[in-house]
Every structure is written in structure tokens, then in C-alpha cells.
């Protein structure tokens, strides 16, 4: 099998510190994270010839090339829909290197999402096409748009906000031992969770919401033939897929059968398991994008880690903690570590495969990294 036929690899990962006020430009954050990833891959910027980021990223590709001194880029692209497409960036990079359009692609996301424009605040000046059906009725921040679906899940299976809080307690427990995490050494109890103020009553409290963070994360994707020559172990992208369905409208899907289900995540998982030749029981750890705690429950069910309506007990019984059946978000996730639009979940997946995570799952060989509508399975490179 030629290098182009084999799955691509993640060769390098990099990041800035995660904060609430970086004190520097988003371009500088992208440059710092990008350089760290290139060096982690044992490369120089001249080895990079592709760039991929989110459509929502404010950094200009040519300015980033100038910062890093990348002399030539042969491929670039961007992926839509924010965090739901976080893994799509790596899919683009993977296809670019496997198809020969680039030799090594730098994926990045960098923003001042706390000290600059906050995702958690209504912004009346921005009315993108397709939002007339939501904004005038009061769905003006992500917490509300997502809570409208989560409420159906609570109704269908009889969950309360306290059930969701049990995920947050685990995320904060994992973050408490992760020096990268904003909430390092700051675990919480379920009582702390229940004492936090309502954001969307009776669904989401403050501690159900991901952080708003400043920071940057970058990833180097290249072909499998490079794996034996890298300074750090590579992670093979054993499977990677998107999952979009026709009922959707702009960023969400209020229009499929029952909003207590997450059919896009099921579609992603089915593709990933088929391609990687594994099932949910083979997954050693999962990094699941959580803008809000309930989305973990919907993903656990949609991806087959437990049955419909069983996520409440699956979480409460300790399965998602270190030492449990499926440790989830071992770095603390977007609630505990930081919200870098989900790319920080991907680099934690790589650390688990390398065996270098601070909260390491011993012998992790299949790591799911998913965000509902996109995801991947990482394995060690041969």
C-alpha cells in the first residue's frame, strides 16, 4: 500500500496557554500555536505547504504564512459551522496529504473568545441568513438554541439538571489534575453545580456551559510514511467523517423526528466504526465536544456507548471517569480545560495515543474524538 492509500497521521500538536485575557492578537496566538505544532512534528515551517482552519477564524492565511515563514502553500481550505465542524479541519488536511495536494498541512484555530468577541453574549448586529426563524423569538445565544433541543431529551427520559451536573463534576475532576486547564486544581461537587446560577432554566446552569477562552491550538497532518521518522509518536487517523442531514437549518436541526435523539452523531459514529473496523466497545477513551453538558449524554447514546435513555446512569455510575469503562474528556474538556472550539479535544486525543496525557488511559489504542456532526478515531501509528 502506498503512503497515499494509507490513513494520514497527526505528526505534531501545539498550543498556547489557555486564558481569559491573552493580552495579544489572535494572529500571534495562531503563530505561537502553529510554530509549537511544527516543532513538535520535528519539522520546520518550510515543510508545511497546506493550511486549514474554521470559516469563523479571523486570521488571514497569508499573514500567518508571513509570521511562520512558510514560503509556499499549495492547499488551503476552511470548514463551516464552528465546533460541530472542528474535526472536519483534520478531514480536509488528511484528504489533502493523501491526495497529494500537500505534503504537510497545518490545522489551527486561535481566538480571543473571552477578552474579544464572546460567543456567550447576544450580538444584535449579526443576523446571518437563515436566522430569522430564531433570533426574533429570543434564541440569541448558543445556550438557548441548544437548550431547546436538550429540553426534549430531559422530557423524554425524565432527566433533571442535576443529572447533567454529574458530567460537569467529572470534567472538573479531570481538569483539576491538568496543569493546562483553566480549572486546574479547582474540582467541584454536585452541590457547587446546583448552586451555580441558571443560564436557561430549567436546563442549563452556568456550570453546564463551556468556558469562554483565549488561546490557540494547532495540529500538523501528514502522510503515514513519515511516522517512523518523527521525534514524537504519531497518531493514525484510522477513520474520520462528517455527518450532516437534510432536515438541518443553519447550525441546528429542530426538524427531525424527536429532538431527544442526535441522528447526525449516530451517522458519524456508524461511518467511523465501519471504516476503522471497530465498535463502541473497542474505544478506550472519548473526547466529546461539549459546548454544554447535555450534549455529552446525547452523543454517548447516539454513538452506541450506551442505549437510548441510558446515559444518565452511564455517567452517574462512573463509566466516564478515569478507570471507568470509557473515560471521557480526560483533559477536562471544553468545560474544564478551555474552549478552543474543540481543537483542544483533538490534541488530547493525540496525547492519549502517545501515552503522554496527564490523565493517561493505560494502553489506549482507540480514541474517539467527536463533536456530534464530525469525528475521528485515532490509533497508534505502526
Amino acid at each position, binding site marked *: 500500500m502506498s503512503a497515499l492509500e494509507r490513513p494520514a497521521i497527526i505528526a505534531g500538536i501545539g498550543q498556547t496557554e489557555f486564558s481569559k485575557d491573552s493580552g495579544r492578537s489572535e494572529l500571534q496566538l495562531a503563530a505561537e500555536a502553529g510554530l509549537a505544532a511544527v516543532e513538535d512534528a520535528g519539522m520546520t515551517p518550510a515543510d508545511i505547504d497546506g493550511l486549514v482552519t474554521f470559516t469563523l477564524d479571523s486570521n488571514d492565511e497569508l499573514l500567518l504564512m508571513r509570521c511562520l515563514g512558510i514560503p509556499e502553500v499549495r492547499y488551503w481550505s476552511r470548514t463551516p459551522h464552528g465546533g460541530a465542524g472542528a474535526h472536519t479541519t483534520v478531514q480536509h488536511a488528511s484528504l489533502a496529504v493523501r491526495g497529494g495536494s500537500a505534503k504537510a498541512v497545518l490545522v489551527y484555530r486561535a481566538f480571543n473568545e473571552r477578552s474579544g468577541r464572546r460567543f456567550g453574549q*447576544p450580538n444584535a448586529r449579526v443576523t446571518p441568513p437563515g436566522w430569522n426563524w430564531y*433570533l*426574533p*423569538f429570543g*434564541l440569541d445565544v448558543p445556550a438557548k438554541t441548544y437548550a*431547546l433541543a436538550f429540553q*426534549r431529551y430531559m422530557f423524554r427520559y425524565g432527566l433533571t439538571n442535576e443529572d447533567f451536573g454529574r458530567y460537569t463534576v467529572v470534567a472538573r475532576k479531570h481538569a483539576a489534575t491538568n496543569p493546562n486547564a483553566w480549572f486546574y486544581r479547582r474540582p467541584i461537587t454536585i452541590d457547587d453545580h446546583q448552586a451555580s446560577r441558571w443560564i436557561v432554566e430549567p436546563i442549563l446552569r452556568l456550570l453546564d456551559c463551556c468556558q469562554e477562552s483565549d488561546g490557540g491550538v494547532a495540529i500538523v497532518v501528514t502522510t503515514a510514511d513519515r511516522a517512523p521518522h518523527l521525534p514524537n509518536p504519531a497518531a493514525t487517523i484510522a477513520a474520520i467523517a462528517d455527518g450532516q442531514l437534510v432536515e438541518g437549518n443553519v447550525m441546528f436541526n429542530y426538524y427531525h423526528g424527536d429532538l431527544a435523539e442526535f441522528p447526525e452523531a449516530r451517522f458519524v459514529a456508524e461511518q467511523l466504526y465501519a471504516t476503522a473496523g471497530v465498535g463502541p466497545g473497542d474505544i478506550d477513551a472519548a473526547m466529546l465536544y461539549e459546548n454544554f453538558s447535555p450534549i455529552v449524554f446525547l452523543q454517548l447514546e447516539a454513538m452506541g456507548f450506551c442505549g437510548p435513555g441510558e446515559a444518565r446512569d452511564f455517567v452517574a455510575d462512573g463509566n466516564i471517569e478515569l478507570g471507568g469503562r470509557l473515560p471521557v474528556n480526560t483533559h477536562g474538556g471544553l468545560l474544564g480545560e478551555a474552549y478552543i472550539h474543540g481543537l483542544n479535544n483533538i490534541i488530547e486525543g493525540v496525547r492519549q495515543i502517545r501515552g503522554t496525557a496527564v490523565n493517561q488511559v493505560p494502553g489506549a489504542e482507540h480514541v474517539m474524538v467527536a463533536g456530534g456532526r464530525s469525528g475521528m478515531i485515532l490509533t497508534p501509528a505502526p
Partner: protein
Amino acid sequence: MPRVIPPTVEHDDAYFWDGVQRHELLLQRCATCHTLRHPPVPMCGRCHSLEWDTQAAAGRGTIHSWIVSKHPTEPDTEPRIVVLVQLEEGPRVVSNLLDVDPADVRNEMPVELCFAEIDGVLLPQFRPAVGS
């Protein structure tokens, strides 16, 4: 009152907001295969017809899901109840529920269409169905 973000009327949804001015909730309907579609799109995904007309919703439906919408950090004098209404015609619409205490809202509760001006913006709204 909470601030209402008014719609930015576009080519493909102008019919809807025109209908609201006449106190009608209009559903886009394919003129060829008669499929109802909401939110609207300019081509029928089923038969690819570009021809469409509208059907006024009868205004009856049930609550698929709901939330209480408040500003995330600032105090609101009057929170809004946001509902996802399952219309009896088939499509779902996001709207607000009036004339009810949040403590009394239930999933699957029957609701009926009404119209109200909220912060100067005329919007299709719902209230508990008479007799429910």
C-alpha cells in the same frame, strides 16, 4: 421588556413576514408536488420545482420542546418562553408562548396561534389552546 432582534427580511422569506403583517402564518408549499417546507428554501428538495405558493397554517399545534429565555448576564424584566411548535400540518416553527406561567408549560401541550407586537416587532406567537 427584553430586547427583540427584528428579522432581516430576505428574498426567500419576504412572503412569511408579509403574511405576519396580515396575521397569517404562511407555510411554503411546492406548487408541483405540494410538499410543505419550513423554514423555506427556493427549490423543492423532493421534485426540484422552483414554483411554490403558500398555505396559511390553521394555527393548531403542540409543544415539542420549550425554554425560558433570559439574558445570560443582565436582568430581564420579562423573560420570554420560547417554544418549538409541532404544527398539525407537519412542519415545526420556533415561536413564543404567551398567557401562561412557565411553571405550567408542558411538552405536548396543545397551543394555538396568535399575533402580538413585542418591542415594536409584530410576531407570530402561541398561547395555550382554548379548553386545554
